Structures are given as structure tokens and as C-alpha cells.
């Protein structure tokens, strides 16, 4: 198993290089960082020409990629457009831990840009993921045990409402119900946006209060997906022979469900969770946007929409690494859940 892990990690190196190359090319095709530079006015042509040069966007794509990868501090750049390269480059390259600086927040190191957002996103996303998994376990197991009961049908319908409607819907509706209208009706209401109230300050209780609506929206949306997988695989497993055997052996019901059935039903669930975990880092684009949560999703969207290659590449590489790591962990989990699965 150790060898398998090492092999997978070594395979990850060419894979990451390949992914980074593809992403870099795609990134340069995603938009024009200098189109309006976030303004409402098209960038003047002379400023465009100058900035293209100063930001190194005039170089051929493969040169830009190599500078991104290995840096350009070993060569000189022509910043004033006189055809003579006189200014030494300042990038050290990803391989030396320098993800460059943002084009949007000009001069701000990418890692700093990302690091500012990562804790916020993890707070929101891990909480939601835990809530989703716990709720989905309860709902999924319950509706598997009580298949086709009224409760099962009602829970199914509600969870599909969450899944079928766009995320913004649930988010905005919850704002209108629990913030706007609760206030209107004189009820205790929840805050709609941000992480805290400036009058009170960023205290843990404020942050928790501001997390209620986004966590609720995110959980509601993903509840259907998770609980459906749990329900269906539980149904599958519950009807299998060893469960019957376990029952006939007189094991207590709870032990049967949790020890036997759930462990054996876990493959699809572990798969889905393992696939979702890396994207916890990426945040929730729409939810963060609507609730004005300062997370990675918004960061990604803001910087993608302005074609900020360094920052977007930083985020994407972070996700890629997380994907690879979590897929590996998932594969290891498989072998733990079903010892017959071997990789060597």
C-alpha cells in the first residue's frame, strides 16, 4: 500500500504539470484582463499596449507559461517598449513557491490573496459539509428503513425541491423569509449578508449567526444528492444476505444498520464525499456571492471574470492538488471498506 501511495504521488507530478499547462492555455482564452480592467470604460489603446508589455502579456503563451513555472528572474524584461530588455524579471516561478502577483490587485502576491479567503471558505464549507452529511445520513438511513412510507415520500420531495431549483433561489428565498420578512413582521431575524455586524465586531457569535443562512442554503441544496445515494445504497445492502444473516443472528438493530450495512453501503458515499471534499477549498460560488461571504468561490469568480491568470491558476492548482490527494485517500478508503479491493 505504501508503494501504491508513493506511485500515485509520483504519477501526480506529470499529471499536475499537464493540468497546469492545459489550464494555463485555457486561462489565456477565458477573457481579456485588459478589456476594461474592471471599469465601465474600454481601456485606452495606448494604455493597453503599455500594460501588455509591463505585465508580460505580450510574450508568446509558452514563454508566459515557462515564466509562470520557473520564473523570469534569470532574464531581463523590456518594460518601456524601446526594444531593449533592461529590467530584471521579478518572478521566481511556481516551482520555487512563487505563484506570482495578481493582475487585479496589482502587486499582491497570489498566495496572500488566496490565504485571506481560505479560512472563511473552509469555515463555511466544512460546516455545511458536516451538516449535509449528518442530515443526509439521518434522512438517507431513515428513508431506506422506512422505504415508501409517507415520511420517506415527503422528505424525498422536499429534498428534490432543494436539488432541482437553482442555488440562488434557495439562498434568496431564505434571505427574504428569514431576514427581510421576519424583520418586517417584527420577529427575531437573521442577518442577510456578510460575516458580522460592524457595530458589534467580528466575534465568534456574530460569525455563527451570519453563517446560519448560507449553511442552511448549501445544506438544503446538497441534501438530496447525498441522502439519495445513502438511501439507495442502504436499500441495496439491507437486502443482502449478510444483513439477513446478521439479523437472524439476533444482533441489535442499530449495530446491524451502522456497523454492517453502513460500512458496506459506504463505497458510493465515500466516492461522492471524496469528490466533493477538494471543492470545499474552492468554496461555493453562488452562495458566497449572495450572502456576501468572503470566500474562495467569490475570489475565483471575481478573478476569472477579469482573467487574472496568476490568481486563477493559483486557485486551480490548489484544487488540482486537493483533487489528487483526496482521490488517493478515497482509493485507500475503498481498500479499508472492502478488503478484497487490492491495487498492486
Amino acid at each position, binding site marked *: 500500500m505504501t508503494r501504491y501511495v508513493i506511485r500515485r504521488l509520483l*504519477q501526480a507530478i506529470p*499529471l499536475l504539470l499537464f*493540468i497546469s499547462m*492545459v*489550464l494555463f492555455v*485555457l486561462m489565456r*482564452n*477565458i*477573457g481579456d484582463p485588459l478589456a476594461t480592467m474592471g471599469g465601465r470604460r474600454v481601456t485606452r489603446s495606448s494604455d493597453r499596449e503599455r500594460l501588455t508589455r509591463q505585465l508580460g502579456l505580450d510574450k508568446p503563451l509558452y514563454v508566459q507559461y515557462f515564466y509562470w513555472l520557473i520564473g523570469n528572474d534569470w532574464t531581463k524584461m523590456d518594460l518601456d517598449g524601446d526594444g531593449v530588455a533592461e529590467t530584471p524579471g521579478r518572478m521566481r516561478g511556481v516551482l520555487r513557491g512563487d505563484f506570482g502577483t495578481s493582475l487585479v490587485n496589482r502587486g499582491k502576491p497570489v498566495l496572500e490573496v488566496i490565504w485571506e479567503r481560505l479560512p472563511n471558505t473552509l469555515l463555511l464549507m466544512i460546516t455545511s459539509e458536516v451538516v449535509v452529511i449528518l442530515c443526509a445520513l439521518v434522512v438517507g438511513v431513515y428513508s431506506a428503513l422506512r*422505504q*415508501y412510507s409517507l415520511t420517506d*415520500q415527503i422528505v*424525498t*420531495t422536499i429534498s*428534490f425541491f432543494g*436539488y*432541482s*431549483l*437553482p442555488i*440562488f*433561489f434557495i439562498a*434568496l*428565498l431564505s434571505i*427574504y423569509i428569514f431576514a427581510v420578512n421576519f424583520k418586517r413582521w417584527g420577529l427575531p431575524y437573521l442577518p442577510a449578508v456578510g460575516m458580522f455586524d460592524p457595530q458589534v465586531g467580528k466575534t465568534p457569535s456574530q460569525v455563527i449567526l451570519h453563517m446560519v443562512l448560507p449553511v442552511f442554503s448549501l445544506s438544503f441544496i446538497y441534501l*438530496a*444528492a447525498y441522502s*439519495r*445515494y445513502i438511501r*439507495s*445504497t442502504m*436499500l*441495496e445492502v439491507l*437486502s*443482502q444476505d449478510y444483513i*439477513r444473516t446478521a439479523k*437472524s443472528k439476533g444482533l441489535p438493530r442499530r449495530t446491524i444498520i451502522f456497523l454492517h450495512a453502513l460500512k458496506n453501503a459506504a*463505497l*458510493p458515499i*465515500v*466516492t*461522492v464525499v*471524496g*469528490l466533493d471534499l*477538494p*471543492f470545499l477549498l*474552492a468554496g461555493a460560488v453562488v452562495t458566497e456571492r449572495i450572502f456576501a461571504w468572503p470566500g474562495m468561490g467569490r475570489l*475565483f469568480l471575481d478573478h*476569472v471574470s477579469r482573467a487574472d491568470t496568476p490568481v486563477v491558476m493559483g486557485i*486551480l492548482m490548489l*484544487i*488540482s492538488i486537493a*483533487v*489528487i490527494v483526496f*482521490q488517493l485517500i*478515497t482509493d485507500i478508503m*475503498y481498500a479499508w471498506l*472492502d478488503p*478484497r*479491493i487490492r*491495487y498492486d
Partner: protein
Amino acid sequence: MVGVSRSVDDLLTPPLTLRQLMWLRFRRHKMALFGVAMLILLVIYSFGGAFFFSEAYANTTNTKMRLQPPMAGHPFGTDTVGRDILARTIYGGQISLIIGLTAALVETIIGVLVGALAGYYGGLLDSVLMRVTEAMLSVPQLFLLIVMAKFFGGQIPDLTVMGRTFSGSVIVIISIIGVTSWMYLARIVRAEFLSLKENEFVLAARAIGTPRWQIIFQHILPNSIAPIIVSATLGVAGAIGTEAYISFLGMGVRPPTATWGNMLDGAYNYIETAPWLWIFPGMLIVLTVLSINFVGDGLRDALDPRSRAT
């Protein structure tokens, strides 16, 4: 203890084929039948409704009549430029149903194939396919969609289906959704295959000389059907929503053609002030997805002989 103490009547069930048995089990499943009926009704609604309202009517604007709540003449109300929402849900339904169902199908086919091959054969093939999957996963769908929007934006030729020209190519949308969303299913199917292929019945089939494709598709695949059905069901909802986003990026169904997804998007600023803008398309999407889920449930039960449903 299980099968031994059956009554004589029970044992005398007339011989049935596997298919007949499945149908029998499916039929006993009331919610599944309801789902089938509902889907048929939705198809009739979307395609039959076209006989009552012309497409031109669905796109007729009347700014004096904008944002009218449901009323006589406009039973579902009107939208922001005064178009009739009933007619738009009918025409939107055609595209949304086609896209939702076929994109989920494409996604399922790719996901099952990749997952099955990787899981069954293992080794090098597994490594290659899973690295490809990881690479695909590493690129967020949103990002891929934006890139494709840039490439395809405004260049997709029209498509005429059943005498109706769909602005923007439905086929392109379907392929894009299918190609960018199969990875979860592939991983799920692979995991199931990794586990199921170690069962002795697979060895038994090999001892018989059963060809590999039959082992993969007839022996192992039916045993991993449960998560596949869930994934396909969820895929329909996903595809309908993604279509709206693709259209929003300017790559998909071109305005003023309606789809349920873009009608919902258009209701964004009117969630509270004009709820009829989203209630009707929203309900239709929920109904579609729910019906498919019930059908899927029924199918799963019908395919699982051990199920306690009957």
C-alpha cells in the same frame, strides 16, 4: 430459512421471463407508475401545447402588460417584457426536457463506460482513465463552460427538429454538459466494479467462458445500478440548470427562446415581487426531476430481486 417454507401456490408461479418479472415488479410500484404518467404528461404539455400556442406568441412582447400576475388570458402571468409565461413554459419545456434527459443520458453513458473499464480491468487502463478523470475534475465545470463560451459563442448553427428551429445547437449543449459532468459517476461505478468484480459469480462467469463485455455489462453492471440511477436522476436536474447557465454565457439557447432554466434565471430579481415568474418553471423542473426519481426508484426495485418493495 428463506425460500424453503413457501406455500405451494407461491411455488407455482407461472414461468416468466426476466423482463416480464421486471415489469411485474415495476407495475406494483405506485410511485414509479405515477412518475411515468407524470413524465408522459410533461412531454404532452411541452410538445402538445405547441398546437395551442405558436412559438411567435411565446416570444411576443408587450411592455404595457409586463409583470402581470396570473389572470384570464395569461393563466401563468406575464414576464418582464410582457410575454405569456404559459406559452413560454411550453416551448421552454421542449428544450429543457430534451436537454435534461439526453444530457443526463450522455453523462451516464460516459461515466459508466469509463468507470466500468477502469474498475474491471484495473492496472494501466485504470491508472490512465483515473488520471484523466482527475484532470477533468481539476478543471471546474464553470471554468470549462466559460472557455467554451468564448470559443463557441455565437457560432453554433441552428438546428431544426420536428419542424422547429432551435436557436443555438441543442446537441452542442448536450455534449458539453455530458462531457463536463461524467466524472462523479465514473468514480462511483469504478468503486462498485472494484468491489463487485471480486465476487465469485464473476469467476463463475469466466469459468463458463462468458465474454468479457457480457461479464461487465450483464453481470457486474446490474449490481451497481443503484448509485447509477441516483446519479442519472440528479443529472437531469443538473443538466436543466447547467443549460440555463450555458445560455447565460451566450453559448446555448439563444434569446428570446425560452427554457425552464433561463426562465428561472430571469426571475432572479423578482423572487419576492413577482413569484409567478419562478413558481411555474420551477414547479415543472421539480416535477420532472421528481418523476424521474420515482421512475428510477421503481426501476431500481424492479432490477433488484431482493428488494422488499413488493
